[in-house]
């Protein structure tokens, strides 16, 4: 048997060996040569970890929307279109009509352009059981009345992230730490086959803050959880929304690609100062 390079093990693991006799030769090496056997196990382990553990991230909805918008509105279209357009404009009979259409289109776009969203009361727009605002409020009420208890009790942010990861949450989660709020525990919920991350903090007075986070793509694509477009845009612009009612404060903010709902029975100002500055 000729000396075989160890990198043939990788080709074998990746299903790249098409020659049957070579495949047998590699298999025999793995079965009879300790060095090859270890190499096979190590490299298979690494490949499987990369394949299984890496969370496939969806393109952020904002980026996707920007790309689609650019594609739809770009003036730089492929060359055959350009020559067609220039042909049209060169014809005097069409030039006035074309100019008129362009001006009309611009005027219509200006008239119909959506206005800047003001800090309005977004809470009244949030309706239905699939609404994130409604779900966050209901979940918090269940927590403080003891109907919902953490599936994991932990003060460790890494342990909570790990818990989310191992229990099927497909998006990247954030578990920030604060000096005045300690982590209490976490819950992974399931809705229409998708898993969602929730965790809870407590302050020194026993007040609770509950954080429910969802990758923004779920609000655009999955149609499992909803939130009004105005509020999403408000958060996309970097704002934090605060709503106070019934002795609790509800905040909405965006962390990386995650939309976060925070509901707390703590002091609204302190809660806002802590969670809106994330």
């Amino acid at each position, binding site marked *: 048997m000729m000396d075989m390079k*160890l990198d043939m093990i990788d080709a074998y693991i990746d299903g790249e060996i098409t020659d049957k006799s070579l495949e047998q030769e590699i298999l025999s090496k793995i079965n009879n040569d300790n060095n090859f056997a*270890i190499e096979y196990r*190590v490299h298979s382990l690494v490949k499987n970890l990369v394949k299984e*553990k*890496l969370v496939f991230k969806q393109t952020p909805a904002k*980026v996707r929307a920007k790309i689609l918008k650019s594609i739809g509105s770009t003036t730089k279209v492929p060359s055959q*279109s350009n020559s067609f357009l220039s042909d*049209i404009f060169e014809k005097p009979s069409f030039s006035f009509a074309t100019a008129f259409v362009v001006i009309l289109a611009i005027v219509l776009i200006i008239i119909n352009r959506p206005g800047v969203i003001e800090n309005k009361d977004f809470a009244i727009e949030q309706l239905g059981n699939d609404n994130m605002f409604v779900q966050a409020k209901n979940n918090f009420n269940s927590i403080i009345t003891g109907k919902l208890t953490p599936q994991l009790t932990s003060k460790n942010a890494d342990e909570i992230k790990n818990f989310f990861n191992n229990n099927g949450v497909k998006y990247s989660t954030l578990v920030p730490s604060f000096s005045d709020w300690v982590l209490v525990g976490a819950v992974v919920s399931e809705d229409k086959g998708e898993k969602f991350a929730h965790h809870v903090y407590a302050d020194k007075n026993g007040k609770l803050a509950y954080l429910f986070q969802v990758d923004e793509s779920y609000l655009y694509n999955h149609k499992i959880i909803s939130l009004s477009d105005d509020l999403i845009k408000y958060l996309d612009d970097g704002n934090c929304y605060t709503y106070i009612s019934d002795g609790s404060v509800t905040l909405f903010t965006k962390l990386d690609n995650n939309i976060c709902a925070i509901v707390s029975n703590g002091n609204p100002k302190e809660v806002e100062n802590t969670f809106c500055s994330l």
Partner: protein
Amino acid sequence: MFAFLFAIFKSDEQKLNEEFEREAVPHMDALYNFALKMTGDSDDASDLIQETYLKAFRFWDKFEKGTNCKAWLFRIMKNTYINTYRKNTKEPDKVDYEEIENFYENIKPSSTDSAHLEKDIYDNLLDDELSSAISSLPEDFRTVVILCDIEGYTYDEIADFVDVPVGTVRSRLHRARKMLFTKLHSYASDKGYVTKAKAKK
């Protein structure tokens, strides 16, 4: 006349848009993940994917219909990354492969029933730690791992993509996996999942 004009404009541009959306847009998530792993930063990845799609749309007439659209998009992204982002992205420190090889040989289990080879040990590692281990690989090695283990490309496709012989792809993958194992072993050791490797005497 206006209606006729609109109809011509619409059919021509709309046809291109629809074709592009049907062929190219479905690969956006795969490209975003590649961008994320190449740049190691979500803002840079967002910029890179936007630039890639705009370029792809601009040159859509150059795309040979019936060929692999995903590979074509990846190629545009790779060139955009090389031309625009690579010089701005902080490259991992130069790797002394000999040092890694020594370390690897040191931590490599001596038998196949060693605890180091239990997948359960590494299952506790987070996605972030795995991503960071991949990001720490030199670019050539990072690219082959992403294309092979995440995107599922064959060696021939990777060779075509990175413009090297198939043998080089194989040897880069071999080295990349060794480097990844040393990284993951370090993370697992730091967390106490495996006992720390002793320094090589």
